[in-house]
């Protein structure tokens, strides 16, 4: 593979890379994906990762390209290596910007030298790290080959050698400063006696355990002050050869010099990698505590044709992150659609996990579309052309007429845009009208969705929708078998019954048959 073939670690086709302004999809807030992405990208603002998380991929191959990279990154040594690279590049950038800002010429030049040295070490470290692990992904194999060529190039080798030598020479410089009154003498160092040590030795016999530290914390600005600057100038004059070499180095590599801005940029392909690989690192870092808490993630089997989707032990990622932080258990659910089935209708007790289940359904599909591991043991998912969500908008609650109208306007827009390749998620529609109205409207809407053959999920209090047609599947949120007062947040495939509500209420007030007979009998 030649250097030309590798271009991006995120896009098999780099022309698909989103522009700088890629807004979040409309459904982000409804599905709480905004929370997930905010948490994933936290602390990584400089890499501007949001456009990548906001842009679903269009082809199965583009998704597979990312899956491969994620699978390679399952090797901790590789993650560590790439993380070290990112850290090195960040510090290189910081160093160069510092070199530009400082005032004293030999400070600027030293920062420049050290930054280029760090660049070499960083690139070399990544190149070597990639050769010590088995890589299966097209992305990382391409990068490895690219780096092998780059680090063997004469230009890179020369830069590396020069920085090494120059640094060693500068590190060897020792000097003495003698201060008396206003006068200062800068001289070569001749191994004069360490007087602080001698004082400490004299009083060592009084030692009673560890001493308090009486050293002053000097506020060390990065700049030299005017005395330090003069000392530095004189140290340079005491060592003309070393500092002459530093001047020459800066001239050769676009470093700081009189009337000259810094003009070193490093390799552009590596700079792009540095940014894009953060997409993987950020997501994996986000998963770590969740995995430690026993939650599973998987690479789903994707199809752009089959709507026979299924997932085992999946869950709402945003909610799971909160629960794990609080040390609480996370309820997981399964779903599957077979044959003609297209729409899951979820009914059951309030607070029973219905909305969470709908979100989880939307999240797995969206996360799958950006090529990242999704919540669950196993999943077979559909690559849609677009995902639509309809959740209640709280701000309109005080105007019920307005709300129903708003509902209908939004649903109309969804149905106008959706195709047979779309996913539609509806949560508690038509709660703002009478039951008869709601039933009638819901039937209308459901008929449209069924006709479109879109994939979807519908959370509703209308049990009647659960048996709408052969294309709908009934799912019910459940209560514990031994204690109906306890909600399990588990949603299972089962006909809607409506009895669950009554049992929960009866139990809560101690009015079930068994309880009531005992209470009356005592």
């Amino acid at each position: 593979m030649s250097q030309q073939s590798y271009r991006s670690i995120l896009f098999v086709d780099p022309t698909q890379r989103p522009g700088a302004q890629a807004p979040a999809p409309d459904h982000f807030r409804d599905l709480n994906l905004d929370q997930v992405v905010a948490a994933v990208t936290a602390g990584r603002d400089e890499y501007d990762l949001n456009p990548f998380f906001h842009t679903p991929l269009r082809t199965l191959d583009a998704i597979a390209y990312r899956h491969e990279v994620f699978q390679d990154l399952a090797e901790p040594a590789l993650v560590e290596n790439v993380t070290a690279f990112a850290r090195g590049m960040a510090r290189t950038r910081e160093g160069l910007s510092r070199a530009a800002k400082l005032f004293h010429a030999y400070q600027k030049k030293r920062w420049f030298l050290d930054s280029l040295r760090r660049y070499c070490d960083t690139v070399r470290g990544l190149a070597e790290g990639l050769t010590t692990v088995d890589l299966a992904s097209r992305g990382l194999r391409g990068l490895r080959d690219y780096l092998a060529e780059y680090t063997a190039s004469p230009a890179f080798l020369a830069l590396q050698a020069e920085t090494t030598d120059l640094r060693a020479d500068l590190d060897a410089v020792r000097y003495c400063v003698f201060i008396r009154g206003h006068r200062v003498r800068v001289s070569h160092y001749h191994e004069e006696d360490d007087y602080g040590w001698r004082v400490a030795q004299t009083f060592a016999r009084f030692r009673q355990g560890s001493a308090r530290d009486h050293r002053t914390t000097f506020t060390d600005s990065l700049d030299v002050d005017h005395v330090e600057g003069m000392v530095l100038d004189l140290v340079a004059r005491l060592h003309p050869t070393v500092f002459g070499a530093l001047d020459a180095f800066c001239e050769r590599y676009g470093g700081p010099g009189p009337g000259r801005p810094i003009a070193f940029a490093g390799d552009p392909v590596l700079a792009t990698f540095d940014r894009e690989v953060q997409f993987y690192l950020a997501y994996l870092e986000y998963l770590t505590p969740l995995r430690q808490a026993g939650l599973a993630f998987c690479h789903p089997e994707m199809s752009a044709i089959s709507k026979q989707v299924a997932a085992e032990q999946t869950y709402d990622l945003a909610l799971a992150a909160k629960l794990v932080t609080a040390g609480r258990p996370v309820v997981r659910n399964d779903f599957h659609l077979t044959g003609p089935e297209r729409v899951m209708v979820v009914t059951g007790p309030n607070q029973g996990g219905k909305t969470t289940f709908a979100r989880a359904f939307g999240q797995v599909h969206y996360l799958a579309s950006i090529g990242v591991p999704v919540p669950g043991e196993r999943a077979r998912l559909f690559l849609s052309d677009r995902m639509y969500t309809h959740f209640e908008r709280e701000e309109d609650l005080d105007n019920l007429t307005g709300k129903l109208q708003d509902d209908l306007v939004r649903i109309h827009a969804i149905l106008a845009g959706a195709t047979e390749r779309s996913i539609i998620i509806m949560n508690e529609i038509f709660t703002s009208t009478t039951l008869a109205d709601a039933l009638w409207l819901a039937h209308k809407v459901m008929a449209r969705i069924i006709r479109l053959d879109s994939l979807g999920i519908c959370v509703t209090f209308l049990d009647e929708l659960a048996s709408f047609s052969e294309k709908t599947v009934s799912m019910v949120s459940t209560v514990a078998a031994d204690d109906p007062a306890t909600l399990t947040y588990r949603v299972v495939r089962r006909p809607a019954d409506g009895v669950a509500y009554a049992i929960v209420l009866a139990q809560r007030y101690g009015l079930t048959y068994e309880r009531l007979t005992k209470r009356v009998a005592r």
Partner: protein
Amino acid sequence: MKAHLLFQDRDVDPTPASDPLTDAVIQDLELDTLVAAMAGGDPRSHSQSSSGHDDFLAEVARTVLLDSLTDPAEIGYRQAVLRDCLDHPGLVRQLYDLALAGITAERGVYGGYLRHPGTILRHAIDLMQGYVVHLRQLRHLADEHTGRVTSPGFTELFATLARQLDDDYFHTVNQHLRRLRFERGVLISARLGPGSKGVDYTLRSPTSTHDSWRSRLGFGDRDSYNFAIAERDEAGARALSNLRDRGVDLAADALAGACDHIRDFFRMLRIEIGFYLGCVNLHDRLTGKGEPTCLPVAEPPHSDALSAFGLYDASLTLRVPAQVVGNDLDADGTSLLVVTGANQGGKSTLLRSIGQAQLMMQAGMFVPAQYWRARICTPVLTHYRREEDATMTRGKLDEELYRMSEIADRLRPGALMLCNESFASTNEREGSEIGRQVIHALTDAGVRVVLVTHLHDLAQSLYAQASSSTLFLRAQRRADGTRTFRIEPGQPLPTSYGRDLYADVFR
């Protein structure tokens, strides 16, 4: 340089034990009265005695008293030092005063804000000059008493002082204190760190060549360059002083650290000699009213010794004008002492005196008895009947058993458990049954138990099953009903003497 008067080979840990069980021991054995006497206070008058109550001495006394030694050799080490102290009480007071003067020397030296190496150094120099005076006095005191003391503790301390603080040493110290004023300039070495900033600043001893301001020309590179800050360049002067501080900082740290160590030495000396001063105070009080004391015989933990002659409650005698009644114990080989008998007949007093003597012995002190020989027991814990829990969070028996369980967490073989009316917060049958289970479990596990009880069911059943390792004692009462306050061997009797008390109160 260490005082090491409490341990031959280590410092004492000055942190007082503080936990509910320790607090209970202090309360149950009335150790605060003992401690107050050691601190020089007189609880009878509520006014201060001649030496005055010293909170510091009280804390030291409490800390050491409750931190039992487990090795007879360590106890012997302290007993020897204590013997010297009782023979030379003047030495003890002088050492204590000197240590105190050393610690307070700091207060006489102006500290300023102490944020700059220069001020830290000047402060340390002044302070060190003060310490040198106190250290010289300490040396002289040691010289004066060498040969008069016999304990390894004092002998070694005085030898150390003579060796470490000789005249040459004081001369060297004074030389440093002069040079550290840096009147002839400061020499610092450094190398270039990141960003060409100087790092690894190290203070160096200047030689005469540094002080000659002629720039010399070598054969190769120049060896030095000079510059000067203009008189009116205030920023430059500040920057120069910062640079100078980098070097001075290291000397300031070294000298200020040395001051800390010397102060810590005086602090440790004050703690250690303070304990013995407390012993001298207590000894004066007890012998002053004619009560006997003795240096006890501490037997190793695996022995089963327990015998006493004229054992009395030191806290009690400190609070009453008359001498108190002593008891004899002949309990070698016993693991359980059951004390029964008349109310207010001296049972609690006996229990307290056993606990006090045990702890005082294990602190290296004399004990309130004419003779005391016992195995070392650690820990010493108490379980006394308590008033109702004020917070009402627990029922009475619940509270009692909770405390017993806390104690059980702490007990281990070889411990001493002093029980006073335990298991009495429920009816006799239940209390006795719980008591039997607990007492048998403890003694079988190797804990020595002294049980004061009026639960006859419990006492009687223990008597019925008693082996040679159980000793039964009974508070005595004369035929006319008056008490002797002496406790003597005797089996439990079915009636308590509550009616006597009733008669006494309702007469």
